[in-house]
């Protein structure tokens, strides 16, 4: 098992996710992009833990943190989408830009 293989796959997942996060209009689709990016991070973390420092459990702790981040991101994303959708009837990022500032 060489680490390059896993990192390359992780880079692929991260980039595909980034394409989604940047190009999608719908908030829900955008979140799928973010999830995919986190997926890449998860894989890279797993590879680093096993193939660089398998002796300590810290790598696995990091994986748990990534999983929790994904869950929180998803839950809050849906909550915000629901709130915006109810208040404004939009689910597209372009139409919700005035949220900034």
């Amino acid at each position, binding site marked *: 098992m060489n680490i390059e293989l896993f990192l390359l796959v992780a880079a692929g997942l991260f980039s595909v996710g980034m394409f989604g996060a940047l190009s999608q209009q719908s908030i829900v689709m955008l979140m799928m992009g973010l999830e995919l990016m986190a997926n890449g991070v998860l894989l890279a973390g797993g590879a680093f833990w096993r193939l660089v420092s398998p002796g300590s459990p810290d790598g696995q702790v990091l994986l748990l943190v990534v999983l929790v981040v994904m869950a929180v991101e998803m839950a809050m994303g849906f909550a915000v989408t*629901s709130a915006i*959708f*109810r208040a404004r*009837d939009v689910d597209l990022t372009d139409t919700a830009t005035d949220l900034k500032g």
Partner: protein
Amino acid sequence: MGLTDGLRRFATARPHLLVVEGTASVRPRLAVERFAREQGWPLVDGPADADILVVAGRLEGPLPEYVDRLWEQLPGPRARVHLRGDDGSTRALLGARRILADIGYQRADIRRTTRRDADMGGMDMGGMDMGGMDMSGMTMEPADTPDPHAGRDMSGMTMEPADTPDPHAGHDMSGMTMEPADTPDPHAGHDMSGMDMPAGLAMAERAPDRDGLKLDVLTVPWGPVLTWWPAGLVVTTVLQGDVVQEARVEQLVDVDANRAEWREALADLEPAVAAAVVRLDALVRLLAVAGWDGARLQSQQVRDALLSSTGDVAVQLHRLSRKVLRSRTLRQMTTGVRTTREEDVAARYRRWLDEAVVAVDSGNLPATADEPHAVHLLPALLIGSDVAAARLIVATLELALSGADVRPVASV
């Protein structure tokens, strides 16, 4: 060949029945339900799991078209039986079972369906699954093999083999293309009124809802060909998820004819026993919709025993009553599902059972009658409830909706 034939007969020994009601359906329906319970032939909820389509009563108005469309959704091997009156149902059902195992007949059936589908040129066949079909039956023979059962005359009813010329064959394209927007057939796939889309699908419309989200709505008709459902009733619902937002109610059968049929069915019974029978029959449906097969079958047993005046009916009825009234789960699940007259579903089945017990024990007729104009009350009751609650509510109005609210025979 002998072995395959044997296997085939074994596999179809207890065919699944899908019962559809038309006008004056009471006696044939009661006969079929009794036969099915005693012989262990399952009654199923939809065409996908059905082998025999049983039509009880007369089909009038738009009903034949619904039934034909339903028939097309039976996967096959399949057979179709039409029952009128209360005699001969056993022979008809056994005859239908023979047809199921008759490979020649079933091949001809496939050929017919396939040819008709092919006739409708220019249609999307991509989604058609031909995998399970018997291709050997698809050779280009000029005519259908003569059906050995087609000419057999059975008194009191007619077998309807599928190769009687189908008046709708030319234009009925259900299962293949978009349904007309007001087809009240819950089995026909999504029926979406509104904007037409190229694939024969429609973009859903949106409407306000109780969560303030204004989500998509979908028009879904329930009935008239639905199990455990009042004969000929069509409730066209606008659903959001599974919450009813709008409801329109029609009755496609003549309820007065059904009422007369009920009288006929109950003619030999004491008035009080007759009152108990109709309540137990309604209870059967309520329990079926509430998803309690054990109590439903028990209730069917008591009803059938009352109808034929066999066995120690009073004891059976008391046992049933205790079982149902003691069930905390059933009470918990039906309390607060509003029906009319300040009764919820839990109060309604309790009253039915109490009235039935009193009627059988003491011969006293129930003092109260269920609401006579249920059809008009229905839409308001359904709006805001989910599909499960809506089905329960419809089931509690069974007596009025199916014409079982006959006044005691003595007063006629």
